[in-house]
């Protein structure tokens, strides 16, 4: 399929500040092509949602931005992927430093089997901060930002695993925030949570978007609609490679999609 990248991206730069961008990206797992020719710009300090049917490559696409696919044997990325205009697949890039700048929150809350405090302090410690007062400050600030402080301030020494599912996920977000990232990638962050915990995470995302660039993958279209500023619709072609069908402001994509395939998907005519 031919893609007019200019057309797809004409709305992308909501604030002209492109934080992440891909240009003609192909992703292969061995001989299987998982993504084909994906070109889009992700604006800074906004929430961009990636939606599409199961298996269309949403999560694979998300993992391109912090090179998580490097961990999969046989995975190979072609094309340009840039963070602040700097190609992140360049050999000179320090992947550990990249993942500090581009944090990630996963589908299932995965706190470390240690205290709430240690969970949040873990990253900063790994990056060389050992002063207790400084760590306390970071933990407090991160938990506040993650809208969790009031709920856990009296149980910082309890195990992170003792928290509820929604609290655990916010703890994971606090853990990401503690290393002061610029981008937060979220891979189905609410799929294991109940509706109220989900709304809390969404509200948290909105407040974080004032200072961070967020990219979220979700199979929940309604969530993408509620929370995001920009939305990208991916789907599989016949050879199962994921392609970008449409990308634009969420309010437009969900009220007046330009591509019939987007319309069919969001109105439930296929998918």
């Amino acid at each position, binding site marked *: 399929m031919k893609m007019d990248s200019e057309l797809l991206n004409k709305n992308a730069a909501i604030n002209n500040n492109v934080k992440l961008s891909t240009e003609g990206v192909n992703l292969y797992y061995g001989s299987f092509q998982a993504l084909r020719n994906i070109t889009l710009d992700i604006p800074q300090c906004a929430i961009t949602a990636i939606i599409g049917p199961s298996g269309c490559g949403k999560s694979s696409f998300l993992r391109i931005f912090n090179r998580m696919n490097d961990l999969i044997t046989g995975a190979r990325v072609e094309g340009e992927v840039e963070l602040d205009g700097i190609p992140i697949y360049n050999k000179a890039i320090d992947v550990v430093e990249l993942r500090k700048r581009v944090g990630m929150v996963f589908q299932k809350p995965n706190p470390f089997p240690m205290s709430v405090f240690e969970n949040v302090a873990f990253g900063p410690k790994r990056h060389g901060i050992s002063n207790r007062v400084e760590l306390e400050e970071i933990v407090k600030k991160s938990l506040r930002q993650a809208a969790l402080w009031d709920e856990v301030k009296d149980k910082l020494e309890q195990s992170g695993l003792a928290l509820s599912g929604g609290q655990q996920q916010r703890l994971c977000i606090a853990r990401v925030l503690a290393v002061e990232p610029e981008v937060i990638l979220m891979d189905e962050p609410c799929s294991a949570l109940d509706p*109220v915990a989900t*709304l*809390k995470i*969404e*509200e948290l995302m*909105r407040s974080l978007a004032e200072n961070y660039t967020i990219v979220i993958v979700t199979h929940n279209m*309604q969530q993408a*609609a*509620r929370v995001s500023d920009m939305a990208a619709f991916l789907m599989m072609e016949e050879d199962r490679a994921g392609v970008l069908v449409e990308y634009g402001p*969420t*309010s437009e994509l*969900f*009220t007046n999609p330009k591509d019939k395939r987007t319309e069919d998907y969001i109105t439930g005519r296929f998918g």
Partner: protein
Amino acid sequence: MEIRTTFRKKLREIQDEVLVMGSMVEKAITSSVKALKERDLDLAHQIINDDLKVNQKRFEIEEKCIQLVATQQPMASDLRVIISVLNIISEVERIGDHAEGIAKIVIMIGDEPPLKPLIDIPRMTEKTTDMLQRSLDAFVNHNADTAREIAIEDDEVDNLYNQVFRELLTFMAEDPRTITRATRLIWVAHNLERSADRVTNICERVVYMVTGKMEEIGASKY
């Protein structure tokens, strides 16, 4: 604890914009009758131009409602607020059209000598704009009882309209040369009477928004 603060904020912003639109239209109605009293053709033209802004505002609000429905999955009272806003702005916009209608009549009348001093028409104007303003207050305050009370006040406007109609009919019967001028004043009064009817529709929407029940209050005789 409030969770969906972002959504609620947007919902409140929409309600505030309905108030802004309401005050634009209230001003248009008042000005249209002022233009009639003072034979101010410039003001009449101004009202006609300003009606475009009212229409524009309605589209803006409508667009925001559509976006909230499409992206935020509003439920229960939130859904009723949005549906009511869509109905209310349509009524407010039509009241704006009535003001524009009066302004056009003012231009038609031009510098013809006045038929009689205007007494009941200004009264109708005052009552209608007061009802409009209070109906929108009832809307933002989610007050169904007040809305029901305001809707019933439409009878006062209807009575004034009947009074104006009868009086002008007498003029026409006594002197056929007054027919054109009298008819134009009847049109003015009719625009005001219809505006007040639309306020009752707004009130019905407020009642629906608050209670979830669709009820007709004081069905108009016209």
